[in-house]
């Protein structure tokens, strides 16, 4: 099911790996959804991410692309080498 802290850790971790405007798609069954929704509401209020619940248990979560922190990371994305195995 997961605690709010765990869901926050999961969503925050995945958002950190998303490009600005990128999509985190989550779908599952079970009783985890109330805690998950609470975290998404906080992320929306913080303007970090917005989401659509496509159907019960399926979430499209978009990392906001117009926040300054996201744009700064995009700038650095263009400048930082990802190493020999990355294009």
């Amino acid at each position: 099911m997961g605690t709010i802290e765990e869901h926050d850790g999961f969503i925050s971790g995945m958002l950190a790996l998303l490009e600005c405007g990128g999509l985190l798609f989550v779908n599952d069954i079970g009783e985890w959804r109330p805690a998950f929704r609470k975290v998404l509401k906080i992320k929306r209020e913080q303007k970090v991410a917005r989401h659509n619940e496509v159907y019960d248990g399926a979430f499209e979560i978009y990392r906001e692309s117009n926040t300054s922190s996201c744009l700064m990371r995009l700038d650095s994305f263009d400048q930082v080498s990802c190493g020999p195995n990355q294009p």
Partner: protein
Amino acid sequence: MRILALAQQGALFVLGADGFNISDFSPQAARLVLAGSYPRSFVRRMGVVPDLPICKNCGMADLFGRRFIELSPENQCQAWVQPDFKSIFQPVIAKRFKPKAAESFENQRLIHWYRPNVLKTKQEDERGEWTDKYSQSNTNSYNAAYVNSNPFKLPFPLELAVKFGKYKRILDAGAGRCSLEGELRRKGYFKTVHNFLAFGAYDCSMLRICAERGSISFQHNWLKPLPVCASCKFDLIYQWAGVQYMTWEQ
């Protein structure tokens, strides 16, 4: 060098190390491989190699990062290989592949790999691993969605977006039996998907399904940062049917 991760008859190429040969492996590890056809290539021997202990557990971490054995050059063991294991390179399986078929070798592999290879993956384990249990308790689902020849995972609207190149860098978080990679491969979507990374399975037996399908996956706890550079980003992260297990962390 992690040659334990090599499948039976899998090949290891050591690049950028002129003069590297079998004697450069630890004595125990050197028993597991033969020299390959190409310079600095090595092929994992078939079956269990004599005089090298069999690992009591899978060498990979479980879903939450716990490791049951630590491998090192001094503590080398070999993975258990079932007596009836059949590599895709053995004639009995290889003859199923059509050399001039419209389908690539890698797509034919999804069809022809030997299904019993992912069962009884641990020696002397009466309880069995995930594949043993699930194939018994949910046989139809196991056959239709876990070891099937036509891996699928994307819901229709998302599949369309991938097909038309909207998403180019994809992370499968909770990849399980690597169905997403299999679907992208067999449908030819890697023409537009440039980066793909997958992690997360119930146990090693599930990762064996990935290996047999020819997919790369690894174990990682998603509550910890992924071991990729800070600037490596994805435009689609996909999580299917794994969030319900979050409390296992407790």
